């Protein structure tokens, strides 16, 4: 079975590194990290991920800007985007920000995989 490709866009280097280790440890995913939100669009273009994990509060372009930019591109607009955020807690705003689902930080590796599977399946 082909590994699913996950792009994680988050300025927290420690967090992205840990997520990559955990997801790749499962043997089901290939993860690309982008810590600079200004490069997010190009990273998505090159990597062609199956799902994008996107932080909201980042220096430079924030998560909302990045999501709009991705949506404006025909090749990228159908890739599921899941927000990662430290500002809301789970269940607080009906599980959706601007039409995209969100995962509240801190999230365990196990829960993260569950969320990813659910959103890729959709």
């Amino acid at each position, binding site marked *: 079975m082909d590994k699913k490709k996950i792009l994680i866009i988050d300025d*927290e280097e*420690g*967090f992205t590194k*840990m*997520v990559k*280790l*955990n997801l790749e*440890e499962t043997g089901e995913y290939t993860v690309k990290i982008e810590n600079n939100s200004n490069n997010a669009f190009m990273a998505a273009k090159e990597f062609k991920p199956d799902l994008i994990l996107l932080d909201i*509060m980042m220096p430079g372009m924030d998560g909302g800007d990045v999501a709009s930019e991705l949506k404006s591109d025909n090749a990228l607009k159908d890739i599921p985007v899941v927000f990662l955020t*430290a*500002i809301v*807690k789970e269940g*607080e705003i009906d599980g959706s920000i601007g039409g995209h689902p969100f995962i*509240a*930080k*801190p*999230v*365990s*590796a*196990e829960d*993260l995989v569950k969320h990813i599977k659910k959103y890729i399946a959709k």
Partner: protein
Amino acid sequence: MALKILLIEDNPDHIEITKRILRKTSEDYQLDSAMDSREGLKMIFEGSYDAVLCDYRLPDSTALDVLKEINNKNKKVPFIVVTALGNEKVAVDMMKEGAYDYIVKDVLYSDALDMVIKKAIDRYRVNKEKERLEKEVIKAYRELKETQGQLIQAEKLSAVGQLASGVAHEVRNPLGIILQGVNYLEKKISAKETDIYEILIMLKDNVKRADKIVNALLDFSRAASLDLKPEDVNSILEVSISLVRTRFKFENIDVIMETKQDMPSALADKNKLEQVFINLLLNAIQAMPAGGKIIIRTYDKILEEIKKGIGRREDDCFRVGEKAIIIEIEDTGSGISEENLKKIFDPFFTTKGPAGGAGLGLSVTQNIINEHKGFISVESQIGKGTKLTVILHAAEDVLKREG
């Protein structure tokens, strides 16, 4: 309009002279007369005179007695003493008692009477206006102080809100890293390394603990959007009471329910209101370490009196004539000092010491009630107890207003 004057005088000749003098003036006077103090006082209390002229010596008493009786009954009227020649000292003493002026029965009586009456009426009007203005200034000052207090409170909460969001972001990100790191290590250690495994569990538990603290801080700082629906406050109270019932038994507290049946619905967020009632009940329990009573009252009321937040202006929380749903929770505990009452809704204010809590309970409660555009107030007496009153909008009024 004619100026109504009452003359209390037992000498009919003097009454006649006074009538003639006043008739000659350019002013339109209407003079009534009384022959003694009893009749005079009756006329003063039953009628409305612009001024009272009173002879010092009356058959049944003196003008001083009349004036004292007027003062006792708190009746305000310009009172002028008429004295016989040489009695000016008495007249001055009377002015100390609150008489507006005096006039001596001498050759100058006819020339001075009109002027003395007018001067007394003017002075009375000025005094009345002064009193009115003083009351207004005091009222305005009080309102200003209240607004200032509210602004300080709002500013504090806004600062706490910003701080909470900042803390949430800055703390949860490292928590996320730690949790993901621990998850990775869990998979990398072998089953026999139980010590390391235990440490990892402990780390995970503490990540949850820190996250819980951040959540509590966020809950406090922003009242999450309310889900307002017509709700029966009595049912919400019952649920809240059932959640703390064991505490009542354990702490030897009797609960007395004085709830009104068939209450109109309040426009409320059920869960948030439940939180409010639980907070208030827990506070009442904590105020009675040796046991006591909690009296819970509910009733509805048409608001008639204009006071803070209740009026006719657009920005008043409640309009006069509107129906309010009122919930009172009263305890027979130790009471709260006047100084502490002022701070009771302040965030982080607590009298319970480090073990008692963060001092956010009543602050969160007030936030929630404010979000309902309602009111919460507190009354307390040291040694007797404390009563918290929550006022909410009746659903029918709000729905009617919003069409």
